[in-house]
């Protein structure tokens, strides 16, 4: 069973994205921020992480940096709502620099996220 981790501080976003993923047949675990996400990743096997960039406690970029070191095999997709101060482009560039395969700008269509997830998990090195 392929497990996807959804990390976002907005509960409604988590609910919506998780629901779509579950409908697509994935096992879903959730986390509110980067620190919680690391806790989850260290306690169970996760195949892909969907990470919001702007979160309290530990944001998406910090999490991505840690993942590169601790979980280099883990695929990551970034979500962005537009950071309050940094321009969108900059956070997107940062996210991809630190290992996110792609950045989705909210409000995006969840179906697009599912397609990207399927593509990433079909790749050889993520199986």
């Amino acid at each position, binding site marked *: 069973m392929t497990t996807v981790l959804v990390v976002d501080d907005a509960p409604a976003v988590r609910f*919506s*994205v998780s629901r779509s993923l579950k409908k697509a047949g994935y096992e879903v675990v959730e986390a509110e921020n980067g620190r919680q996400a690391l806790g989850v990743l260290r306690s169970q096997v996760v195949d892909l992480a969907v990470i919001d960039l702007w979160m309290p406690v530990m944001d998406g970029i910090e999490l991505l940096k840690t993942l590169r070191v601790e979980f280099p095999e883990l695929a990551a997709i970034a979500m962005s709502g537009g950071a309050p101060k940094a321009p969108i482009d900059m956070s997107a560039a940062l996210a991809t620099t630190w290992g996110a395969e792609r950045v989705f700008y909210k409000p995006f269509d969840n179906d697009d996220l599912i397609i990207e997830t399927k593509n990433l998990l079909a790749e050889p090195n993520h199986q």
Partner: protein
Amino acid sequence: MWTKKLALVIGYLVVHILLSIISAKLEVGPNISIWHLPSGLLFAGLLLAHPPFRSTVLIADILARSIWSIGLWLPHDPIGFSIALLMSPLTYFGVTAFIRSRVPSPFDLSRKATLLILGMMAAPAIAAPLNVVNLTSGGFLPGNAMGSLIVSFWVGDAIGVITLAPLFMLLARRWIAPNVPATQGAKASTIEAVGLAMAGTALFTSAGLFDQSSAASASKFLTLVPLAAAAVRRGTTGVAITVPLLNLFVVMFLATAKPAIDVLDTQLAMLAYSSFSLFLGSYVTKERQHLSDIREYANQNAILAAAVEATPLGVVITNATDPLMIRYANSSFSQILNGCDSVLVGKNLMDLFTTNTDDTNQKPLHDLWTKIRKCGHAEAELVFTRADSESRHCTVTFASITQSEGGRVCVGILADVTERRLREQAERQKERLVSLGQLAGGVAHEINNLLHPIINLAKEAESELGSSNAEIRELLRCIHQSGQQAGEIVEKVLSFARDSSKVPRTPIRFDEAVQSAVELNRRAIPRSINVETVLGGDGVLALVHPTEVAQIVTNLIVNATQALDGNGHIVITLDTLSGGEGDVVPPGQYLRLRIADDGPGMDEEMAKRIFDPFFTTKAIGQGTGLGLSVVYGIVQDWQGHIAVQSMPGQGTEFTIHIPVYNPDVES
């Protein structure tokens, strides 16, 4: 202190005795020495000495006199002798004390010579008879010789004072009274003085030798000439040196040649001539000082006047009463007011201000005049409309000044602060937009997080309902669409806050970009609106992105279309121009894009806020009000300039300056 006093006494004694010896040697008449030179020393000493030393001088003089005459008279009449001895010095003491109390600086011969000469004349006149009365018992000729004795003593004393006091004052001031200012040209004066004195003597002697019978009269008058010449040429200094010299030479002549002339007559004549030339000399010196003061004053004034004329601030001087007639206005004043150099002297400032300013200044002007009338000073900020219809913001400051002669004038300073106000306005606008951008970014982020579930869950719900429940599906579709529209708006807001310098730009032909943008919009414009394009600037390049051009053109055309409400003209022009000093853009080459409509236009209030984000004149739901702020942001990013010109009922024109691409300058 005591050593100084002792030194003074010894010095005085020495000089006094020397002078007495000289006087004795110069005896030329039947009476005792008639040129009493030591009197000059006493007079000068009493006038010059600092208060602590004055009594020392007095004591020294009495000592000197007693040394000289003690052997002569004491045995005959001790009391009379004592009185005679003390009378002269004490009288001089009293007279000089009087002079010092009336005249702040008695050493300043050039100022109070009259009083000084009077004192010189009066003192011996008081002292001499008292001397003589007591001495008659000592064996002098009684009877009608008395009169001539009195006169000769008085005249002798006076001659001594007038001859030598000024000289001693010049010579001795440095060690007795260092506060006295130095006289100039003493060396040259001395040489001249000697020459003049010799000339005078020559005149005197020639008169005496060739015309002995009337030698007392007209011919002696010629000796006045060299004295007067010394006075006019060298002032006080020349006289102080010439007078004693001439007197000395005359006496020597009388002593050696012994001509048959009345010595007393000669004495009186010399006395008169010396006093007169002393007075003339001091007058000349005073006048020269005045002239020099005036010249210096005039020089200073000239410098100040040049500074006032050159300052970029407007300076105006008016009467202090209504209607403030202008006495002086520098060229900057008329430049600021009228844009040209015009003669404003004689015009009324109140009228001038009223005609040059527009109605918005009524209240500030009224307050200004009221305040000036009440307390003489006031400040205001006014807007002046020049003849070339340019408006200048100016600060005006008024203060009233009381002149030295007692009149009052008003001085006004006019400063042109137009550029400063414009810059402040632009700064404020920029700050507002920056903070709005930041706010927008933060808000957008939160809303995006909320829109995501709205859009996606509505969509899911719609699909899960299947073909049944068409009505509920309709509701869900509406929710979905609304969410998407909200997302688009937020996107626009974020694009406003985004750092768009990352947008890739290459030099493109601006006219082509405008052309295609206009064509893109033509289909959307109703046929009843006439669109005219005059696109110059062929082939001119600008560092812009074609979509940015499209965004701007679209926004402005849409605005114009909505303003025209179905009927009217839109004119789009493109040309090039050079920016110069004082224009809205810095110097350089520019493309100028203008989009104008002949719609209802807008008033100044609206025009000021037209580029503000979220400012819209449309009804709620009809528009976001973001279009023009996006346009503004793009133009700013291009380092260009956008302005709107509009009057109610006269349409609206947007003017955009775009810097022409310069391949030599990489921005």
